[in-house]
């Protein structure tokens, strides 16, 4: 893309033009260097949108909850974006992105931008480019961005690192007790939402949550609030939206939000750096091929020896490049 075209694209994104936003998101998903260039230019404008993550086991009704919350905020005149992430099949590389259709009423609202993403081989609940896509929504002057993902594996942690506030959505009779859930779930929740609260087993689930908090000796001020909703009827949504708004307001005022964002930014930078190094070692320097050759050579090889071998080659190559004035571009 030309420099002129890039500027034009950014202007159009700022103006909220859907196609420009979508195109910029695609550049991010494809890892196109044009996105990184654009990001450097627009990063200064980011931060206006509040980013709310929703995660939890399948069947909890997250999409319905997102739809309900979003409609509530829309009625209050807020501009919204939604990012819905679903897993890519490790066998076929394909994905069925079915969250959008579960928010069908929202999809008809012109003031809401919905983007469906597949994880594309990344373990955990978010795609590599989720942060980037959320940035584009932020840039297009949304007030709120909702990020929805299925809570399995590491994804609860992932989504907390990409958002200002994390809602863990559970439902009674889900079959999993809290103890069976990953430790990560308990660490990242800023708020618990028990959806489908009209189903039997509500009291038991609340008690389990409280028991786990007791077990971890959490002082009262660090205990996340537990709210109940029935997203399909709208019950509890207004209250939930209020609590979310107030919590974010309070965190902004106290500086906690800034700390969270800074921590998230640090993690993101580490991810970018590590990702780049990884590509550099294995792909750019073709050390993946080298490793395969050595393994094919046979004999009993120590993993440590092989690793040392790779690292030596890498460092030598990097030193050579520095001497000759070439820089590997991430």
């Amino acid at each position, binding site marked *: 893309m030309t420099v002129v075209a890039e500027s034009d694209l950014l202007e159009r994104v700022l103006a909220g033009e859907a196609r420009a936003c979508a195109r910029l998101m695609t550049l991010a998903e494809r890892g196109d260097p044009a996105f990184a260039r654009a990001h450097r230019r627009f990063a200064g404008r980011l931060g206006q949108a509040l980013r709310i993550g929703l995660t939890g086991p399948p069947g909890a009704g997250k999409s*319905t909850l997102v739809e309900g919350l979003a409609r509530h905020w829309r009625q209050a005149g807020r501009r919204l974006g939604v990012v819905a992430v679903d897993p890519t099949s490790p066998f076929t590389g394909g994905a*069925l992105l*079915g969250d959008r*259709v*579960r928010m*069908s*009423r929202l999809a008809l609202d012109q003031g809401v931008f919905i983007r469906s993403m597949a994880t594309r081989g990344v373990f955990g609940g978010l795609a590599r480019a989720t942060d980037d896509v959320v940035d584009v929504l932020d840039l297009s002057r949304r007030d709120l961005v909702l990020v929805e993902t299925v809570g399995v594996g590491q994804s609860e942690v992932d989504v907390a690192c990409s958002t200002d506030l994390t809602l863990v959505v559970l439902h009674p009779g889900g079959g999993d007790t809290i103890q069976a859930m990953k430790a990560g779930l308990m660490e990242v929740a800023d708020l618990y939402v028990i959806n489908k609260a009209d189903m039997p087993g509500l009291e038991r689930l609340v008690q389990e949550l409280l028991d786990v908090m007791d077990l971890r000796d959490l002082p009262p001020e660090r205990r996340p609030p537990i709210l109940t909703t029935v997203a399909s009827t709208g019950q509890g949504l207004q209250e939930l939206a209020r609590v979310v708004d107030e919590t974010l307001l309070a965190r902004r005022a106290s500086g906690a939000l800034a700390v969270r964002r800074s921590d998230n930014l640090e993690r993101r930078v580490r991810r970018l750096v590590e990702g780049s190094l990884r590509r550099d070692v294995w792909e750019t320097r073709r050390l993946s091929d080298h490793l395969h050759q050595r393994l094919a050579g046979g004999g009993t090889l120590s993993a440590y020896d092989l690793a040392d071998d790779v690292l030596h080659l890498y460092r030598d190559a990097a030193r050579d490049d520095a001497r000759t004035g070439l820089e590997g571009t991430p």
Partner: protein
Amino acid sequence: MRAVDPSTGAPRTGASRSPSFLAWQEAFGATPERDAPFETVSCESVPALVTAEDVAGMDMAAEIGLPGQFPFTRGPYASMYRSRLWTMRQFAGFGTAADTNARYKYLLARGQDGLSVAFDLPTLMGYDSDHAHSEGEVGRCGVAISSLRDMETLFDGIPMAEVTTSMTINSPAAIIWAMYLVTAQKQGCRLDQLGGTIQNDILKEYIAQKEFIFPPAPSMRLVVDTIEYASQHVPRWHPVSISGYHIREAGSTAVQELAFTLADGFAYVEACLERGLDIDAFAPRLSHFFNSHLDFFEEIAKYRAARRIYARRMRDKYGARQARSMTLRFHTQTAGCSLTAQQPYNNLIRTTWEALAGVLGGTQSLHTNSMDETYALPTERAVKLALRTQQLIAYESGVANTIDPLAGSWFVEDLTNRMERGAEEIFRQIDELGGVIPAIEKGWFQQQIARSAYQYQREVESGRQKIIGVNHHVEDESGDERIELLEIGIEKEHGQVAALQALKRERSAAKVAAALERIRRDAASSTNLMPAFMEASAAYATLGEMVDVLRQSFGTWRESPSF
């Protein structure tokens, strides 16, 4: 070779087989089987041979019995086709009411016994012909009925007290039925003279056909309103046709079709009992509707199992006392999804054996598809052949000369038992999910169907399931003579829209407004809505206007799809 206990399906341990059987087994094993999966179209494995030993444990009297006697495996009536053949009822409808009226007269003149109305998509979804969403869709898949005037035209010259009519309509069924009843009254008929059916099976819409408008609870209320009204005022009418056809067309297996359909029916029974209706007052008028698909014996076994399961539940679980409350009576339609666009004349033959299965399964009424229906709605020529298919079976094949001729066939009885067991297992799963409506809300039925559909498609793509013309004996048909097709010109839509607008100018706006207000009031209370619908129909309120009141009162339903 399996030897199983027929009541449990468990292998009979220590079963001793006769020496001749063992000899057969050896001879059979010595000959290589041909390259085929030996499965039904539902992917159920079919045994090479079934013998008396496989059904030896059956209590023949209790399980099979006699026609017209509990559990009605052999048929709901003692005399079946010996006294009266099944009703030949071809589903028809297209264009305007006038077009369809002409087709009805054509079919009645050629020996069709009863009428069956196909409505267009706008009507099915509760939109008038002039609604923005109706553009391009008016009269294409069925007849456009937006008002009483259209209904009057549809039945012009057809004596409604003498001809029974089935109407395939679901979400707005109560309203369309109201228009029908008012039309009949204007012809001078009494309500108690009228016979027919409205499909009115909303549960399968959520599950399979997706022609829903309102959410489940108010939709069930409308269904119970119609059942109640029928039992009190239109006693010859079938207010529900509990359907499996669409479930099967959406891709379910035969056992799924059987179990999901019966489960839906039982959900309606429970809803009626909850309202305080007496089971023997409404159950005699419940009817069913099944698909007749490619696997000949699987379908026959399905129908027989259906009757047996239904009789037992109605008597033992729901307390029915009269035989008429326990007998499952059904309409059959040959499988639309079995037809191919390739080599379309083959469809005539597929439809023939599918129809035969329905007859050997004891259906009360039958629709046979036309060979051109993978392309368009049927031409006159094609639908006549479809009707002749039934007549040839009825008058020339001899199968209607005796009742339930396949009873006692070891293979068929064994298969009937297996279908019943499979259905009971599914009932158990539905119960575990909390019942039909919770299962619908969880997307469970929809997911089961989507999986079966995908599995079947993979069987076809791999060539395991052979379909002539599609993946077996495929021909280049580009040079073939193009079969004539029914074309529905866009002028039908324009004419319909103009007529509707004229109607709106001519009628009394005040009467319409008052009637719509009554619907709103009655919808908000627990008053049976049928009288309000009839009043509004008589005032020439349109379908869309009445449905809009209900949309506001009940809300609309959007599904969360499962794959």
